[in-house]
């Protein structure tokens, strides 16, 4: 589904990704872990097409297509989804309006009939149940005045509505209390199936207790420095990131890595 080959990317002239290689098949869950500044979020944003990040080398194939040639909205309509680490507030636009627009844009792209407000309302109600959000959130402006946990749940609601083939969850666990974490993780698990793939970008192992990954990749200094199964996450939890950082520093420069988030 996704082939990342020797991916290099810069932001504001600083090289953050320095040759990422990653291969993901349908039905798989991959965790990307690593210390702050390792390039985890940069990788997530590059996959979604954030304009501030420039790919300087390498390629990304998504279902055989060159993902990097597609605009962010085209990627989304093709089934790529990024759950933001810091979801954006959109004053004056209701959640329901926004979700229906996004949903219908995708339907149009797939040559399917658009849903009218009533039909969409039914669908939205069903999807909102996945993240235990009640109807009051639908009439409120997108993320405006939402708590941190509500914003993250809203991201997963968007995922539930758009049903992406490839979902990249960027630190979706950060800032969540244990109940919210359980709801968010439960939602993701319900959406997980043999057709889609999920990339979990996270600093902590905690989320992986709830969403169990098939593979764990450890990023440091813009490169993947360790790979393994879910047990690697436990090892990191126990030993911390210092030994990984030391390893990365030993194998190459980390200049500019502190710019990444």
């Amino acid at each position, binding site marked *: 589904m996704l082939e990342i080959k020797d991916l290099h990317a810069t932001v504001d002239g600083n090289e953050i990704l320095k040759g990422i290689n990653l291969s993901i098949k349908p039905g798989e869950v991959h965790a990307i872990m690593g210390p702050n500044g390792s390039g985890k979020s940069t990788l997530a944003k590059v996959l979604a097409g954030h304009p501030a990040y420039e790919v300087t080398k390498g390629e990304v194939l998504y279902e055989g297509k060159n993902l990097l040639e597609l*605009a*962010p*909205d085209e990627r989304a309509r093709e089934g790529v989804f990024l759950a933001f680490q810091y979801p954006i507030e959109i004053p*004056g*636009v209701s959640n329901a309006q926004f979700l229906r*627009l996004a949903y219908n*844009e995708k339907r149009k792209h797939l040559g399917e009939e658009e849903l009218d407000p009533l039909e969409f309302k039914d669908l939205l109600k069903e999807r909102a149940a996945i993240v235990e959000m009640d109807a009051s959130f639908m009439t409120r402006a997108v993320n405006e005045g939402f708590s941190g946990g509500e914003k993250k749940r809203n991201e997963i609601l968007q995922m539930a509505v758009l049903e992406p083939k490839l979902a990249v969850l960027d630190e979706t666990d950060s800032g969540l209390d244990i109940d919210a974490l359980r709801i968010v993780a439960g939602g993701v698990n319900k959406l997980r199936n043999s057709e889609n793939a999920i990339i979990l970008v996270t600093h902590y192992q905690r989320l992986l207790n709830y969403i169990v990954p098939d593979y764990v990749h450890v990023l440091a200094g813009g490169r993947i420095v360790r790979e393994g199964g879910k047990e690697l996450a436990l090892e990191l939890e126990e030993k911390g990131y210092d030994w990984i950082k030391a390893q990365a520093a030993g194998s190459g420069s980390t200049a500019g890595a502190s710019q990444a988030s």
Partner: protein
Amino acid sequence: MVTEIAKEQGAYAAPFRRLQEKTGTDAPSWVARLRESAFNSFERLGFPSVRQEEWKYTNVAPIAKANFEPAVENESALDAAQLQPFVYEESRASRLVFVNGFYSPELSSTEALPEGVVALDLAAALREEKYAETLRGQLARGADFGENAFTALNTSFIESGAFVLVPEGAQVEAPLHLLFISDGQSLSSPRVLIVAGRGSTATVIESYAGAREGDAYFTNAVVEVSLGEGARLNHYKVQRESTDAFHVATTRAALARSSAFNLTTITLGARLSRHDVQVTLDAEGAECWVDGLYIVGGTQHTDTHSVIDHRRPHCTSHQLYKGILDGKSRAVFNGKVFVREGAQQTDAQQTNRNLLLSNEARVDTKPQLEIFADDVKCAHGATVGQLEAEELFYLTSRGLNAELARNLLTYGFAEEVIEKIKIDSIRAQLDEAVLNRLHSNLETKNL
């Protein structure tokens, strides 16, 4: 230069004389004297120049040079079908229509107004003895023609217009729509006087439109509002003149004790528009909301000058003006809040926010506070910005194309003002203006 300006003012002398002679017989003599006095004032003041502080950013020379001929009655033959694009369903049977400033009984209907509510042609009201005292006491008492040349010009041509009297305690449900349509190339001088009695509640929509897009004409309106004790008035001004037209208007409201004036001004049309809003909070407990939304593009120019005058203690004012500018358009916002000596416990808020959709659009915004009391709560602020890149990315990352994302953010920006509007048809009209093709996708508002 001097002689040229004199000539431009002179263009109005002959029509003015004709009016004075024509109605000399049926309008009360005080009206003739009022006009005379206003015309003297207009001749003395002349059209303002950009050298005057209040007109620094708005050059009205094109209005002066065009020498618009004052409209006369019965020049137009507009029919009800041509009116359709400009009417609001909510006011189907509570509507006064004015063509070029003159009342059109055939196009108007006031059936939905309760007994006792007066909504009349000003010319007719002036002929009736029972309104003489009210009219004499109120007409041209608020809008000062001694200082403002456009008000003076309007007052010189007082003839037809709207006279609205809401009796004490009346609760008027149907919004009264005062629809001013321009048909042709002339100068219209719409005049409105609204007197709301003690404890009454009413809604007035004042709207301006051109019969044909592309017509070049000049609307010069003056609206005076007087609210009695505890009266509440929701007032909408919707300006969607032809984009080749000129629109200058003054809204002057005087608020008695515990009264509430809620004005929302929507500006979409005209090549050049200027709106002067003056609200005086004349007694304790009065409250006003003065909100606005201007959406301009191309080479449109719009100017809002507001004065909120806190004259007595315990009054509250809220002001929110938002602007969306595209193309090479230009907006001016000048908002003054006065808190007079002794007006303690004043609460005055003023905000002006502007969204520039192009690099060539320009805004000059100047909020001003002048406070002569010490126990007050006042805040003001102004911003001019563009769409946020992070917001655009967020929307596009959900599959909305860049244009749709821009439209949706623009819509969201305007929504803060639009959502306060209680008339569905006006809201729908604005959603359409903001979104155009996106409109059909967004009927889900109340989902």
